[in-house]
C-alpha cells in the first residue's frame, strides 16, 4: 500500500519520471479523444484497430533494416516511421479488399488485422535470432511500456496533440461534412477522398505515438472510449470533442498516477481500465440519454400519468355522489389497479390536497382535486378533437402531457376546438364541463 508521502509525491509530480509519463499520457489522451470523436462519427473504429495491429511488421522490419546496416535498432524515430508506413499499408489493404471483392468491412478488417499481426510476430521471432540488435525493446510496442518514457517522447506527444487539436479545430466543418453526408458533400465539390485520407492519417499518427505508452493492442481503446463516453454528455460536436479530450486526458493522468503508486502495475492497461470505468459512469449518469436519467424521466412520466388517471377516476366515481366521496374498493375496481398501488396513489393525492380522508378507506374529493380533474379532462378532450379533425398533421404535434394545450398549438386553435366541442356536447351523453 502506498504511503501518504508517496501519494503526495506522485500527485504533485515531484518525481521526474512520473512527471514525464503523466504529461505524455495526458497529451496522448487528449489527442486521441479529439480525433477519436470523428473516428467514431465516421464509423471507422475497427479500422483503427486493424491499423494498430498492422504497425507490428513495420516496426520489426525497420528494426531489422537498421540492425542489418549495423545500428543498434534503438532509434525510436525509425521504428515509428516503420510503424506508420505499415499501418497505412494495412488501411490501404482494407480498402483494396472492400473494392475488389464482395467482402464487407468486418471481414476485410478481420483479415488484414490478423494476417499483418501474424506477419509481425513471425518477423519478431526472426529478429530475435538476428545477431547484433536488442530485441527486448520491441515487445514493449505490443503491450506498451509507458514507465520507460523519456522527455523526448513526452515532447513528441505534446507536439502531436497540439497539431491534432489545431487541425481539427480548423477543419471541424469539413470533417463534419465528411462524416454526415458524403454524397451531398461530393456534389458540393468537397474533396471527400482527401478529407478521408487526412482523417485516417491523423488517426495513424496518434496510434503510432500511442504505441509506446499503451501498446498496439490497446491503442484503439484510447481513440474510442473517451469519444464514446462524450456522447452521453453532449449532442453538439464541438462540446463532444472537448469532453472526449478531457476524459482522455483525465484517464491518462489517473492511470499514470495509479500505476506509479502500485508496484508492478502496467500503465497502459490501467489507463484503459480507467477510461472504461469513465464510460460506464457516462453511460449510467450522463445527462444526455444516460441510463439513470432516462429511467428517472420515465418513472416521473409514469407517475404523472397515473395521477392523471386517478384524478379522472375520482371525478367519474364521485359524479353520481352528492358529497364527492368515494370508497377504496370502488377505485380499485374502476381501473383494475392493484390495491397497494391505489393506496400509494391516494397518499400522493392527499399530499397534493386533491382528496382527504373522512373515514377508513373512504375519501372525499376536494375542490382543488375537482378543478384539476376537470382541467386534465378538458386538455385530453381537446387533443382528441384535434386529432380527429386534423388527423393528417396532428401526430407530430400532439403532446398530451403538456400542462396547457394552448402552449403547444396556440390559443386560436384551442378556441376553434372548443367551439367544436360545444357542438358535440349538445349531442354527447358525457359532457365534461370543458368551458372552465
Amino acid at each position, binding site marked *: 500500500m502506498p504511503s501518504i508521502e508517496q501519494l503526495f509525491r506522485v500527485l504533485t509530480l515531484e518525481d521526474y519520471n512520473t512527471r514525464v509519463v503523466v504529461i505524455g499520457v495526458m497529451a496522448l489522451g487528449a489527442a486521441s479523444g479529439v480525433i477519436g470523436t470523428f473516428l467514431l462519427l465516421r464509423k471507422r473504429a475497427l479500422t483503427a484497430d486493424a491499423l494498430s495491429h498492422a504497425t507490428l511488421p513495420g516496426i520489426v522490419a525497420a528494426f531489422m533494416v537498421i540492425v542489418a546496416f549495423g545500428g543498434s535498432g534503438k532509434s525510436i524515430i525509425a521504428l515509428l516511421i516503420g510503424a506508420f508506413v505499415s499501418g497505412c499499408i494495412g488501411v490501404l489493404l482494407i480498402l483494396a479488399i472492400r473494392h475488389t471483392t464482395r467482402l464487407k468491412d468486418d471481414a476485410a478488417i478481420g483479415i488484414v488485422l490478423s494476417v499483418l499481426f501474424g506477419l509481425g510476430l513471425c518477423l519478431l521471432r526472426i529478429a530475435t535470432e538476428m545477431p547484433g540488435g536488442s530485441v527486448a525493446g520491441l515487445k514493449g510496442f505490443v503491450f506498451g511500456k509507458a514507465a520507460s518514457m523519456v522527455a523526448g517522447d513526452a515532447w513528441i506527444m505534446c507536439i502531436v496533440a497540439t497539431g491534432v487539436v489545431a487541425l481539427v479545430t480548423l477543419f471541424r466543418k*469539413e470533417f463534419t461534412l465528411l462524416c454526415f453526408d458524403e*454524397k451531398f458533400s461530393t456534389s458540393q465539390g468537397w474533396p471527400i477522398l482527401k478529407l478521408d485520407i487526412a482523417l485516417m492519417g491523423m488517426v495513424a499518427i496518434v496510434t503510432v505515438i500511442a504505441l509506446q505508452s499503451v501498446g498496439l493492442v490497446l491503442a484503439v481503446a484510447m481513440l474510442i472510449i473517451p469519444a464514446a463516453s462524450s456522447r452521453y454528455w453532449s449532442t453538439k460536436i464541438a462540446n463532444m470533442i472537448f469532453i472526449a479530450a478531457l476524459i482522455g486526458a483525465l484517464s491518462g493522468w489517473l492511470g499514470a498516477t495509479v500505476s506509479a503508486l502500485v508496484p508492478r502495475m502496467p500503465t497502459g492497461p490501467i489507463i484503459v481500465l480507467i477510461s472504461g470505468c469513465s464510460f460506464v459512469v457516462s453511460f449510467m449518469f450522463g445527462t444526455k440519454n444516460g441510463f439513470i436519467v432516462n429511467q428517472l424521466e420515465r418513472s416521473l412520466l409514469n407517475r404523472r400519468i397515473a395521477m392523471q388517471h386517478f384524478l379522472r377516476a375520482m371525478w367519474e366515481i364521485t359524479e353520481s355522489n352528492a358529497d364527492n366521496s368515494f370508497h377504496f374498493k370502488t377505485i380499485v375496481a374502476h381501473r383494475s389497479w392493484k390495491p397497494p398501488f391505489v393506496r400509494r396513489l391516494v397518499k400522493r393525492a392527499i399530499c397534493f390536497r386533491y382528496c382527504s380522508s373522512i373515514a377508513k378507506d373512504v375519501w372525499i374529493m376536494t375542490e382543488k382535486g375537482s378543478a384539476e380533474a376537470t382541467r386534465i379532462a378538458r386538455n385530453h378532450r381537446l387533443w382528441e378533437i384535434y386529432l380527429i379533425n386534423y388527423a393528417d398533421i396532428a401526430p407530430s404535434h400532439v403532446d398530451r402531457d403538456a400542462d396547457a394545450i394552448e402552449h403547444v398549438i396556440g390559443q386560436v386553435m384551442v378556441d376553434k376546438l372548443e367551439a367544436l366541442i360545444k357542438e358535440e356536447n349538445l349531442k354527447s351523453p358525457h359532457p365534461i364541463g370543458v368551458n372552465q
Partner: protein
Amino acid sequence: MNEMPIEPGHYASSPVSIHDLTVAYNRKPVLWDVDLDIPEGKLIAIVGPNGAGKSTLIKAVLDIVPRASGDILLYGKPFKKQRDLVAYVPQRESVDWDFPIDAIGVVLMGCYRKIGWCRPIRQSDKIKAMNALDRVGMAEYAHRQINQLSGGQQQRVFLARALAQDSSIYFMDEPFASVDAATERAIVSVLSELRSSGRTVVVVHHDLQTVSEYFDNVIMLNMRVVAHGPVDKVFTNENLKKTYGGRLTLLSEAADRLAKSKVEG
C-alpha cells in the same frame, strides 16, 4: 424548348444538357445512351421501375458516380464550373439520422461551400438557414436533434438545406417517399414557389398517380430514355407500358380499369 427535340444537341441556355450518357456499375450498364435536354423553369419528374437508373441519372449529372461515356453541360458549361447553380436533395436513407446535429446544423451545411474552407459560420448564414427552415414549416424545430424528428420532418430539413443554397437548378431524389400528408403538401408548395421564380426542378418520383398533378414535364426512364416531354403529351398508357414493360402493379391496373369503367359507365 419544351418539345421533344428530334436531335438533341447542346443548347447553351438549357439548364441541363445530357449527351450520350452511359453509366455502368460492376460491368453492368445502368444507364445507356441517355440524351436529354431539360427545359428551364419547369417541374420535371423522372419515373421508371426500380433499378431503372433514376437516381443514377441525377448522381451522374452531379459527378457523384463516374460516367462510362457521354458529357453533361449545365447552361453550356461543365458541372464542375457550375456547382453554385445546383442544389441536391439526396434520398433520406443516404444519411445516418443518429448523427449528433440539430435541424439548423444540417441546413447550415448547405452554406458551407459559400463560407469556404476553415472559416467560421457567420450570423448571416444562421439567418439564411432559419429562413429556409421557415419556408418548409420547420422553424420551431431548428434546435431539435435530427434523431428526434419524424421521417417527414427529416425530409423537410433536407429540402431546407437545398433552399438555403438559393440555386437555379434543383435535383431531388424521391422527396415524397414515405412522408406524411402535411410534409407532402409542404414540399409541393415549395416546388411551386421554385417554379414561379423561374428555377428548374428535377425530381425522381415514385408515385405515378400524382405525376400529372404535380409536374409539368416527365422523363420516362428504363436504362434508356423511353420518352420525355410535357406530361399531357408524353405520359400515356403506351409509354407507361414501354417503360414498365408490363410490370405495372395490380393496383395501377385496377385503377386503370376503374377509370375506364367510370368513363364508360
